[in-house]
């Protein structure tokens, strides 16, 4: 029996019941469409997430004191932001410090109301005027404080959105004030959000000069630097020299992690989940093919007997049924891959994303389908091949 004959016989057997074949193939179609779509969508979405994350993370450097150095070696100078802004490639720089207020509470009311909480234990952050740009802060109302406020040690404050909500301050028209311990601060601005240093969202932010005078802040705790894209590695090397030429090892410079690794990690998590789902669909499809091929073998017992009588060896019978089930899997794979690509393109078009799909995925999917069909058809095919021709002819 030639391969062409085998192909003819298998296809004829397959298309003998087109309705049943279509329904059987449906399981594989769904499984492989899910596989291709999930791989494509996770890649597309992952690229999207990572794309946003990259742009933010790839331009950020945080300079802080090194734990391994003595306090003297690691002190950040007050003019750190000004020094760094002189470096080519730095877009903005600002320093910030958590202020130790020694248990002082923050309140907006001059009197203590016993029925409700009027005093809060809020974080007080000291910031240089340039910090707001460096953390990409957005202002809901009011203004940022300026270098003059810091130089004069004015008692002004900017509230993070959570802090403002807690203190009940939403408008600035009536010049609201708050008290930190016994000192009164004028609220000049309320933040809407920050892209970096989320700790600022719940904090009361005061000028560094003020923190220095009122709370004895001795030096900035960290400096946040925004660079141009691609400049972080170079700037990271220059920062210690710019800030502490006398003790270049005293500072800790945190440059962004390799973005590609972060993307791979995100995708790995997504893919494992989606691949499991696709695997389950594919398994259901495989069971469907196995079941229908088995039914087909039983229904065609007489035909198997006839073929044996016409001179088919056991292997011819086995190959025919294997080819039928593998072809079903292959069809399922081709249709599933096409459907999956359509889903990826459709969802991407709807979301205005750029569809990203490994070109190997839609090519390998039909192969996976064919292998699924082949594996599913193995037991029915062996069963068909093991039939004794005499019994098969009698049963048919």
């Amino acid at each position: 029996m030639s391969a062409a004959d085998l192909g003819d016989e298998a296809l004829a057997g397959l298309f003998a019941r087109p309705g049943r074949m279509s329904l059987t193939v449906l399981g594989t179609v769904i499984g492989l469409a899910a596989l291709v779509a999930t791989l494509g969508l996770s890649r597309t979405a992952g690229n999207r997430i990572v794309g946003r994350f990259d742009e933010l993370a790839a331009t950020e450097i945080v300079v802080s004191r090194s734990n391994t150095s003595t306090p003297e070696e690691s002190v950040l100078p007050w003019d750190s932001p000004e020094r760094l802004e002189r470096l080519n490639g730095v877009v903005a720089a600002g320093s910030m410090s958590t202020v130790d207020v020694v248990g002082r509470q923050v309140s907006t009311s001059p009197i203590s109301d016993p029925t409700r909480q009027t005093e809060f234990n809020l974080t007080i952050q000291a910031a240089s005027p340039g910090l707001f740009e460096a953390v990409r802060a957005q202002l809901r109302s009011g203004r940022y404080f300026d270098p003059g406020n810091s130089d004069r040690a004015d008692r002004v404050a900017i509230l993070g959105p959570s802090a403002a909500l807690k203190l009940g301050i939403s408008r600035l028209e009536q010049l609201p004030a708050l008290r930190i311990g016994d000192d009164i601060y004028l609220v000049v601005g309320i933040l809407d959000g920050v892209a970096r240093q989320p700790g600022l969202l719940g904090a009361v932010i005061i000028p560094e000069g003020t923190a220095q005078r009122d709370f004895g802040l001795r030096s900035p705790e960290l400096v946040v630097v925004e660079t141009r894209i691609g400049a972080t590695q170079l700037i990271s090397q220059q920062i210690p020299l710019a800030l502490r030429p006398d003790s270049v090892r005293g500072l800790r410079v945190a440059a962004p992690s390799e973005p590609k690794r972060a993307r791979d990690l995100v995708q790995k998590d997504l893919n494992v989940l989606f691949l499991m789902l696709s695997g389950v669909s594919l398994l259901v499809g495989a069971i469907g093919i196995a079941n229908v091929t088995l039914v087909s073998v039983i229904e065609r017992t007489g035909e198997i007997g006839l073929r044996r009588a016409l001179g088919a060896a056991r292997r011819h019978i086995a190959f025919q049924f294997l080819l039928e089930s593998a072809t079903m899997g292959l069809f399922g794979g081709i249709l599933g891959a096409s459907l999956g690509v359509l889903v990826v393109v459709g969802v991407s078009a709807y979301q205005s994303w750029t569809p990203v799909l490994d070109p190997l995925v839609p090519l390998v999917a039909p192969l996976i389908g064919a292998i699924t069909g082949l594996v599913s058809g193995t037991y029915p095919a062996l069963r068909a091949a093991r039939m004794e021709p005499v019994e098969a002819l009698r049963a048919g």
Partner: protein
Amino acid sequence: MNLRPIIEIRDVGRRFGVEPPFDALVGVNLAVHAGEWVSITGPSGSGKSTLLNVLGLLDVPTSGTYHLAGTDVRALNDGQRAGLRSREIGFVFQAFHLVAYRTVLENVMLGDVYRKGPRRQRAGHARSALERVGLGHRAAYMPTRLSGGERQRAAIARAIMGSPSVLLCDEPTGNLDSVTTAAVLDLFAELNKGGLTIVMITHEADVAARADRQVRIVDGRLTEAA
């Protein structure tokens, strides 16, 4: 007549089961020469079908020897037996065994699929086989549209498709009315006249009478009919 018979079985036995064993064939000897038409008759359960299955290489005897066209079939494995079967034997069954989802022409062509014949000439050969049995005009039909007699003639066309040495017929007229039976037997007579060896099992005496030679089998033992 050739010196060596085309079918030669000596002392063939076929035993089924073990507790208790059942002997379907006991010490059967039969020689069929090329060009003979032999009918095998016997009551139900006498071993007719078992003998035909052994002759057609669909079953293996438990004892004795069998030479088909000069080949000792005991030494062959499953694949070799299938090859010999496809070359030397054509089957005609009571139930026709046409594949319902193929056309009449494709059913006849199926007779050549498991031989190593050239694909290109297959359709032509099938058409001439159909012409030979008088079914040329039904080539494109599906088997379900054919009458019983036409179905059996299509099955005969399939059996003679590859010019086998022997035609083995298992109750070929069992499902046919008397007029169609006569037509099919006339066809067998014509094929036999053309040199085809025919071995036919039947339980109908008038059908058996059309053969050159009749043998009878009772309880697995073969006797030459008078």
